């Protein structure tokens, strides 16, 4: 009897501990999602060019992330969240491509296959760059247009590395590709952005 009572008391404590852990995890999850949702929305909006679609993608991403990765450690959350988002953006891109083919308005972008001159890609660290010469909303519009012109993988590499601040390994994990691919995509993205922004001037 005493053993059973002891077991029941232990079970009650374990129950309370679990409830507390779940509640803490829920708060941490809420904070994390609050922190990434706006950037995720911006990334989705750049990829699909439409805020409603972007909001749907972000909601879908949040649900899938919580369903599959909420139990992971908090340090793993950022790359895993962006992996889910990247996957959803790829799906959206694929669906749109198929739809566009059927509607015969598909425009093939060959920028991803262009061979770039390494000298052209090299950055001059002393040069203030094209954006500094564009003021306020002009800079925003120019950057927005230039980012929308980039192929999906290049844009994701740029946003994750340069805006989200991920290192190469984390970006590779989020994009589910090799570190070498991340470097290649980023290098091409930087060159294309620079060129586009210079042209914009």
């Amino acid at each position, binding site marked *: 009897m005493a053993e059973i009572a002891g077991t029941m008391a232990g079970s009650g404590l374990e129950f309370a501990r679990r409830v507390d852990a779940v509640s803490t995890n*829920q708060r941490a999850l809420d904070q994390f999602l609050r922190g990434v949702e706006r950037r995720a929305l911006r990334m989705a909006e750049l990829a699909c060019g439409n805020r409603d679609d972007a909001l749907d993608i972000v909601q879908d991403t*949040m649900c899938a992330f919580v369903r599959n990765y909420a139990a992971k450690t908090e340090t793993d959350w950022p790359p895993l969240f962006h992996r889910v988002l990247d996957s959803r953006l790829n799906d959206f891109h694929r669906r749109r491509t198929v739809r566009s083919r059927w509607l015969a308005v598909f425009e093939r972008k060959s920028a991803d296959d262009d061979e770039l001159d390494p000298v052209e890609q090299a*950055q001059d660290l002393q040069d203030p760059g094209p954006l500094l010469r564009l003021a306020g909303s002009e800079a925003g519009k120019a950057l927005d247009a230039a980012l929308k012109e980039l192929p999906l993988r290049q844009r994701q590499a740029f946003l994750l590395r340069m805006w989200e601040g991920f290192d190469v390994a984390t970006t590779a994990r989020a994009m589910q590709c090799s570190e070498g691919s991340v470097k290649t995509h980023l290098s091409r993205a*930087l060159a294309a952005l620079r060129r586009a922004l210079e042209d914009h001037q």
Partner: protein
Amino acid sequence: MKDHQHSNDRPAWIDQASQVLDDSIRDLDAATLSRLNRARQAALAQRHAHTAPAWLLPAGFASACVLLLAVAAWQPHRRGETQQPVPVAAAADTVADEGDSEENSAEFYQNLEFYAWLDAQNKGDGG
């Protein structure tokens, strides 16, 4: 994770681009913020629904313990009910039977050597 604040080896225009992107998400309209909030709440509610079975585990264990206690408390009564009073005569017969059986068994073991000899004799006659 966020290393770009500390990096000095990248072109200034990239920092400027990051700043422009940060500015673009700072002032979102109320409808968008509301939609984001609803999306977040929906995702978290789904998480809440998924964690419910984990809560049920200790509750189920406690219920099983209570059931076990109830069964343990009920069993002695049941045993008392099922044990019918044995008639005195029948009981005496049973004791007598048990006594006979024990007696026969003891007699058998005492005469075990005789039975072994008898068996050997029978085999010898047969051969």
